């Protein structure tokens, strides 16, 4: 079992959903990122999504867009992102690490180069916002050959007719984008999330993670009761935005509130 599968299995054995947390690499600067990643782990994050900054993050709302611009503004390069990943892997050998970003920075030196870098840095998976299944050939085959998952996204507009295309080649986990929209904005109604997760579970054995618009421990807990993973991004990125270099303890405190909310109720009463 690879790191991602082991982590989802371990969370399942504990009767809880995995907490997946996102920050943008190099935000506010490259030097500050390792401590922020450590704070995510210390706060109880199970899986880390590390954002690769891009000048034109068109699927992101203001919080993550600003994080991208802060990162690039402070001089973050792609080589820094892989250095951050390599360093993280050395200190956290068992915590899955996912790179998330846009196609152009990933493909500018060729998909082979990118896949090699991912493998060498111990990256477990990649989420590429603007590579839909129709363009999988750009990135998917080389990543999979390198043993790196290309995580697929399902959205409220992905209907039953289209879902098989999304699942064909999907691996690692399936990321359910709970709202038709950009990151960090409105949250979907719990009922619609439940319905969507039910449909996805019927169609695949992959773990289902739910993200977009999840900002509070209460929301995370509600989603955690039905999904295998809960993704929180913009709310953490906002904390980094407010506290900059000094963000790590604030990040850890907030992430701990999320991970605490995901603990199974029986365990809570027992503790």
């Amino acid at each position, binding site marked *: 079992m690879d790191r991602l599968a082991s982590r989802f299995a371990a969370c399942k054995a504990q009767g809880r959903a995995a907490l997946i947390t996102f920050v943008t690499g190099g935000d506010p600067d490259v030097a500050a990122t390792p401590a922020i990643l450590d704070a995510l782990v210390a706060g109880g994050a199970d899986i880390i999504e590390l954002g690769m900054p891009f000048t034109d993050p*068109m699927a992101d709302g203001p919080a993550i867009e600003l994080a991208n611009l802060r990162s690039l503004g402070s001089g973050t390069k792609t080589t820094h992102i892989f250095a951050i990943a390599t360093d993280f892997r050395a200190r956290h050998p068992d915590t899955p690490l996912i790179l998330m970003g846009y196609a152009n920075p990933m493909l500018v030196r060729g998909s082979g180069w990118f896949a090699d870098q991912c493998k060498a840095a111990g990256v477990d998976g990649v989420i590429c916002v603007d590579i839909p299944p129709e363009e999988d050939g750009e990135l998917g085959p080389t990543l999979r050959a390198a043993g790196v998952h290309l995580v697929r996204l399902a959205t409220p*507009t992905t209907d039953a007719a289209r879902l098989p295309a999304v699942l064909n080649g999907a691996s690692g986990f399936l990321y359910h984008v709970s709202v038709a929209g950009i990151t960090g904005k409105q949250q979907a109604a719990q009922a619609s999330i439940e319905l969507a997760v039910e449909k996805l579970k019927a169609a695949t054995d992959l773990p289902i993670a739910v993200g977009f618009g999840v900002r509070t421990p209460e929301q995370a807990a509600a989603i955690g009761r039905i999904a295998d993973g809960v993704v929180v991004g913009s709310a953490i990125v906002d904390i980094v935005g407010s506290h900059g270099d000094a963000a790590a303890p604030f990040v850890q405190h907030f992430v701990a509130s999320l991970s605490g909310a995901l603990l199974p109720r029986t365990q809570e009463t027992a503790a």
Partner: protein
Amino acid sequence: MTDTISLPNSLRSQPDANGHFGAFGGRYVAETLMPLIIELERVYKEAKADPAFDAEFAELLRSYVGRPNPLYYAGRLTEALRAKAAPGKGAKIYLKREELNHTGAHKINNCIGQALLARRMGKKKVIAETGAGQHGVATATVAALFGMECKIFMGAKDVERQKPNVFRMKLLGAEVIPVHSGSATLKDSMNDALRYWVSNVHDTFYIIGTAAGPHPYPELVRDFQSIIGKETRAQMLEAEGRLPDMLIAPVGGGSNAIGLFHPFLDDPEVAMIGVEAAGEGLDKKHAASLAGGASGILHGNRTYLLQDEDGQITEAHSISAGLDYPGIGPEHSWLHEIGRVKYMPIKDEEALESFQTLSKLEGIIPALESAHAVAAAEQIAPTLDADKIIVINLSGRGDKDIFTVADALGAEM
């Protein structure tokens, strides 16, 4: 300039089923948008096969846009260039008068077509991005014509620079949304239009202003703009009894150029020149994606982009807001790679010069975009024999640019 192409199939049969023009084009969008653009592709195929759709489009182009617009022999420009050329040299120059369309540019052709598609899909709200405001005005115009709700995303800097067009759009009933993100110019207005669209896919149609974006946009925008080349072909046959030797058009995203070129792609005797904005020079700030960029992915398509070694998009610059974009339509990237169309850079200062030349010699004030094509023709015509024929696409009128030009020339208004 008469390269013959020995590819087996028609050059007019692109893109393939997945929207690729050779290695370019495609559909690089978030999953949320995929079902919608697949639906748009289906509706467009249906519309193309429906004679009623074509008839309505043609009628609106006639009675509302004012087509066909003339193919005009620019005698004074031709003679002025011959006077500077060697004996027997100096090609004959015609202007395709897209600037005489309603709203003053070629943009309206595409907007009418897309509004018809929006109506066919049952969408009552349209959005668009705009740089200088020309596409915004054209979209607001068709929204008024079709009784649709309209939002225009425009970089905050451009809102400030282009106040008359902002007011025009408001008069036409559109809401203008200033975009503050990124560099607050055209590419950022496209980012924000995409952000809005992804959040409102159920009831909103995105009228993209140029032959770029995810498939099927580059194809359908080209098809709607191809009226330019079809008319030119017929008008030239009537005027001269033969096809032109060369077509010259400005290229930002490239919709007017592809509209002129496409009906001639399979005529090897017709040379084609796309004119990119070289801004302050290719070694300085410019907007020439082919001359100074590399293949990459942005705004839904693979195409040539201005970018750094990490794939970060770099800022474009041109005195012409319509050319001030760090990318180019994917079909142009393909035509460039196979060599069917030659692309040449023209600088701000050269365009400014030709802006004035055409105004004085022909009594036609060209848009700064079109002035780039005039500048290219001024360089090329004197090198060709006098019996050769050039057509310049005069894609828009220059009224919108008089403030920019006055500023650049240091003139008091």
